[in-house]
């Protein structure tokens, strides 16, 4: 039928179709909920989307850490002390391609002069990687499930993707397992400061007056203290005989006690803006209680701001924990976190010898980087005026 139509008519038809489409889109736009709008804007932000997916990957690995790591984190191997990372290859020495990835096993030798272990790749053999391998002993996944499958493994010999540490423990297993502590301390810390920030910021912004002035002074005071020295001083006084869980909780609380000030400021600023809105007056006239007004009318109004600020507060917590543990003031071995693992690289001569000890550092930087990307995207997406 299109043949009979003249060019003009065709154009008009196309235009009509387009405007119809635009109308539907408009309709979708106007009827979309706040959540959908934020999500649509967020999707356009490529870097933020990328960051968010990496962040979720990190949380995923943290949850299923036992399944992903090939070896137990305390499993020592005297034969492989400070073994370098093995490269995963697809193409062998003869230039032949293998679909199944493999590593060359390490052969060890003791240097006759320094008595150090020297590792060389033994190119005569190939150690193929297999996925979803069965293990001899079953292990508990997240303390609930008894499982005897691991994500990957090899048939003969061991695989050290990130090399080993000074006791011959697999650094890949330890780094992945450490993400459980490092990644969760940020979340829990932010959660605690979120509660503190909401309570104090809420009181400050809603009631105003003298309480407001007092809380603002306290926050200014907290912000003006150099954080790391204070964190160091507080965590140095955690008793030595406390168990790992107690230390973990103590560190989290220390981190969030110093960090809630910024959040409280955001809450207060936004509350001051929102409490002048007509719907708040309406609720008051209708006889709603003040707590009801705060929780069900005011909080939803700036939830998006809160989420953005919470996201952007996570890196500070993680970097704080890493720095403290690195200095030996935070979490203590045998607890593994990125910070405690990095303790091994305190001396730069050790690092120069065994650069792979810095792998946990790459994890820290990547994770913090991706959270920042995600937070930046969220901030742009949550701002309705952009």
């Amino acid at each position, binding site marked *: 039928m299109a043949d009979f139509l003249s060019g003009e008519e065709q154009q008009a038809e196309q235009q009509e179709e387009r405007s119809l489409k635009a109308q539907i889109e408009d309709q979708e736009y106007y009827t979309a909920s706040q959540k959908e709008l934020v999500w649509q804007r967020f999707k356009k932000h490529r870097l933020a989307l990328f960051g968010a997916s990496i962040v979720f990957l990190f949380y995923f690995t943290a949850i299923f850490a036992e399944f992903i790591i090939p070896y137990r984190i305390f499993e020592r191997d005297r034969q492989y002390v400070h073994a370098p990372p093995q490269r995963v290859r697809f193409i062998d020495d003869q230039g032949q391609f293998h679909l199944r990835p493999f590593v060359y096993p390490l052969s060890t030798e003791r240097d006759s002069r320094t008595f150090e272990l020297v590792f060389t790749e033994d190119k005569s053999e190939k150690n193929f990687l297999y996925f979803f391998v069965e293990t001899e002993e079953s292990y508990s996944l997240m303390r609930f499930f008894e499982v005897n499958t691991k994500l990957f493994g090899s048939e003969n010999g061991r695989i050290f993707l990130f090399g080993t540490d000074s006791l011959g423990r697999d650094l890949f297993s330890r780094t992945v397992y450490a993400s459980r502590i490092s990644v969760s301390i940020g979340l829990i810390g932010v959660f605690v400061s979120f509660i503190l920030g909401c309570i104090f910021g809420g009181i400050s912004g809603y009631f105003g007056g003298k309480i407001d002035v007092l809380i603002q*002074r306290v926050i*200014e*005071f907290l*912000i*003006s*203290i*150099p*954080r*790391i*020295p*204070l964190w*160091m*001083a*507080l965590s*140095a*006084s955690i*008793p030595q005989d406390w168990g790992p869980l107690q230390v973990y909780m103590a560190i989290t609380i220390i981190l969030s006690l110093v960090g809630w000030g910024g959040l409280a400021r955001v809450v207060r600023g936004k509350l001051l803006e929102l409490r002048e809105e007509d719907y708040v007056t309406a609720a008051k006239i209708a006889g709603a209680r003040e707590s009801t007004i705060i929780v069900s009318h005011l909080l939803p109004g700036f939830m998006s701001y809160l989420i953005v600020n919470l996201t952007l507060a996570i*890196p500070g917590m993680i*970097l704080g924990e*890493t*720095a403290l543990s*690195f*200095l*030996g*003031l935070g979490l203590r071995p045998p607890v593994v976190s990125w910070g405690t693992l*990095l303790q091994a*690289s*305190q001396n*730069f*001569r050790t*690092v*120069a010898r065994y*650069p792979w000890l*810095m792998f946990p*550092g790459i994890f*820290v*930087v*990547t994770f*913090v*980087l991706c959270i*920042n*990307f995600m937070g930046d995207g969220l901030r742009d997406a949550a701002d309705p005026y952009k």
Partner: protein
Amino acid sequence: MTEYFIKRIFYMIIVIACVSVLAFIVINLPPGDYLTSHMRELAMEGGTVSEAQIERLRARYGLDLPLYQRYFHWVKNMLQGDFGRSFTYNRPVRELIIERLPWTIAISLATMVFEFIVAVPIGIFSAVKQYSIGDYIFTVLGFIGLAIPNFLLAIVLMYIFYSQFGVSIGGLFSSEYIREPWSLAKFLNLLKHIWTPIIVIGTAGTAGLIRTLRGVLLDELQKKYVITARAKGLGEKKLLFKYPVRVALNPVFSTLGWMLPAIVSGEVITAIVLNLPTTGPVFYNALMDQDMYLAGSFVMFLTVLTVVGTLVSDLLLVWADPRIRYD
């Protein structure tokens, strides 16, 4: 203006009083008091302390008094210049602070200057040439700078220099200059070393400043007065620097206040890794050895440093920006 000034000073005194409470808490948090740690230390070295000596020290630091009285005793001693004694260094805390604190102040100030010198041109460039390759490169570098912890950056730099050039870049002087009196050669040697801590401490702050400046300047460049000025034929350079840049720099200056705590924090941890002769390593050792008078005094002084710095920056801002109200 004078009224504002007095008010701010008054506030600062209250804040410093709060800081002193905090420092006192830090001193008293670990189990046992100064004397028990001191005696443990002495016993480890095989020495003994006479009863009379213990009694004398007890009276001097008021260790028999209840906690709140001990606080006032401590403040009184401090006002007279007695900050207690460090048993690990076996020296008065005051001497150690006088020796170390100026270096922390010097490095912090130098870092601040560095951050401005680097961040302002880059921020202006990024805003003017938004979405250019240069802007993207600086944005990515900035994000990485924000994500790398100071201590990691310090180790990476040391590692690179050690493995590539075989030189150690820790410390502030080469070993032959450490005990030397000041001379031109020593100063030049200092310049050779000091850039490492400055870069390490300054990276994160610089990245943050670039982001702030870029954001504000972008907003400013879209305003009508810029379009008007351009329509009237004002040259691009003059147009940029005469108004938008000046306006955009104001929030940057007002961030001075919270830049300082971050810099001092970074300085402490960087100094520990790079082994600088500043407060960092002494503070760290004090914490590790539970040498609490020393540690508490450092918390006190580092915080007073940032509080005073914030005040100075606020006053400068009032002086520089006539739009700011004094109330």
